[in-house]
């Protein structure tokens, strides 16, 4: 009896978690203008709309521009900071780490209001620079976490061995530390890009009509006039995120193997 109840609960819970995501995907291929089942016939017209309608095409390009900018900036800043936090050399390292993770905690709307006031004062309101800077703030914690985890896995004896063989610190860093930390850096960058891709609230506050990102465009499309284009965009995002998550998982596995290989 208990077994049956457990199985039933498990199935229902998995259905609750998975069904929404599975339900939206086929609607991307509907020929109807409504987002309803049953699907009358299959068509790619909504992907065509995504690729040709100005608002959607521009939003995809914007998402790529902003995502690339925020990823590069946050990966650079986050990796440097993670290297600095390594090994408890720094006094107050705990305080710094908490500060670096804080953007994950502050409610997006609060940060959005502050950003809007601040960027407008700098003259960066409704500009690509402003949106990229705002997204970078949100992406940085993911890079710090990911690179820190990767650095923690490096066996210090490997670096000491390199040093004992006469390599100067810069060479040790370039030839030993960096290659070992690289998977963490790349998966941090992947997380950063995915975060930027999905960000709506801050974009709502700091972006002008010319910086509408894909997520922002989806938001207003759902709000004002929902069409299967949203499902097509959702499919694009899901496939994109899954590819990125797969890449990150692959790198983590390689990371573990490298660490295992580097262990004595």
């Amino acid at each position, binding site marked *: 009896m208990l077994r049956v109840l457990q199985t039933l609960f498990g199935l229902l819970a998995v259905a609750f978690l998975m069904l929404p995501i599975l339900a939206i995907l086929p609607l991307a291929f509907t020929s109807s203008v409504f987002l309803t089942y049953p699907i009358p016939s299959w068509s790619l017209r909504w992907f065509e709309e995504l690729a040709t309608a100005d608002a959607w095409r521009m939003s995809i390009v914007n998402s790529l521009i902003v995502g690339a900018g925020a990823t590069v900036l946050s990966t650079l800043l986050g990796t440097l900071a993670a290297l600095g936090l390594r090994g*408890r050399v*720094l006094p107050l390292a705990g305080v*710094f780490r908490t500060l670096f993770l804080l953007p994950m*905690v502050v*409610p997006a709307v*609060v940060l959005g209001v*502050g950003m809007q006031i601040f960027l407008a004062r700098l003259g960066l309101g409704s500009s690509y620079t402003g949106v990229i800077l705002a997204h970078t703030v949100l992406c940085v914690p993911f890079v710090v976490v990911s690179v820190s985890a990767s650095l923690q896995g490096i066996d210090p004896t490997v670096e000491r061995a390199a040093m004992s063989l006469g390599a100067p610190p810069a060479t040790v860093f370039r030839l030993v530390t960096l290659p070992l930390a690289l998977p963490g850096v790349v998966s941090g960058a992947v997380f950063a890009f995915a975060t930027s891709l999905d960000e709506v*609230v801050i974009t709502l506050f700091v972006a002008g009509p010319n910086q509408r990102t894909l997520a922002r465009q989806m*938001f207003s499309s759902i709000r004002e006039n929902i069409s299967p284009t949203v499902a097509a965009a959702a499919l694009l995002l*899901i496939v994109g995120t899954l590819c990125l998550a797969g890449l990150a998982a692959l790198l983590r596995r390689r990371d573990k193997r490298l660490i295992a290989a580097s262990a004595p």
Partner: protein
Amino acid sequence: MSRATAGERSRAFLLVAPLLLFLAVFFLWPLGAMVTAAVSDEAVSTVMPRTAEAMADWDGAGLPPQPVQRALVEDLRAADDQQALGEAVRRLNSAVSGFRTLLTRTAGAARDAADPGAVSLPAVDPRWEQPRFWLALKAAVPRYTDRNLLAAVDLRRDADGAIVNADPEAAANRVIMARTFLVAATVTLACAAIGLPYAMLAAAATGWVRAALLMAVLLPLWTSLLVRTAAWFILLQNEGLINGALQAIGLIEEPLPLIFNRLGVVIAMTHVLLPFMVLPIYSVLLSVPRNLMPAAASMGAGPLRAFWHVLLPLSLPGLLSGSLLVFMVAIGYYITPALVGGAGDQMISSVIAFYATGTANWGMAGALGLILLTVTTLLYLVYGRLSRSPQLPGA
């Protein structure tokens, strides 16, 4: 570990410095700008600096002395920025109606007068003999104000400066805050009700079952929040899959109202936040020895008794930090209530967004934002105390 040398320390600091600087400028400063916007009130003081200075010497009893009246006349004579003057007039008129005509007439008289010292304000307009106009002016000249912070919790200062409840028709914020906490608490309970047994099931399972159960939690976590909200929009709508299925099997005649109401918001938010509940409980349960439940059973405890006395107490730390996390994230939610909720389901974030992007009322947006920020920070501090690493799961 050997003690770090000064060189190592400064090298580490140089590595951390760029991010520190970046976050100080683009994270802490904007938050500071928001707080400043909440407490500053510069519309009147920028136009009337002399009046502001002279007002400091007046205790607010009766009518202000001659220097204050003279300073006001001089300020109005010197005011050449029409937009700033308009802002100041609007601010004063919202405090006491009638200020608009009063100031327009007085400004005209002040400009036309040959000698500003000879202008008698009561002669220009008899309303200057009423203390309430002067008191409103005195209340409006300081650069900093608690007006927005009080208004954020439906309070205001009366003419004597005492704090009183705001007029009922202007008071909506307490209701919205109570609603925010209610929705967040409901979502937290729903997440706990599903998440606790789910995590136990996943921790007890082995092999592909455990992998599948974990995948079902992680996959939504990796999926875009917007995609998940759009998916619920599609499922819950009147022509959606749920209503369609229920109608097809003949359970209901008319579609159930599932969207643009509280039920829809709770369902969608529970789905979005469930992983934040499952993962902390699961990680706590993983450290529980697997033979405890069989041990309890071998000593004669039934499954329920063993659950109640063994498994549940052991999973409490995970349940607690999961609940805090879900509640903390839920009170700041904006997108899901905005898309699947109705007008009566909007939470504090929607009101902040309305003030900021709808009416450009930075003072109120900042004041409500400060409240939300304070509550979230307190919850985060408690969360950080409870779970050893301050890091969020899934990150």
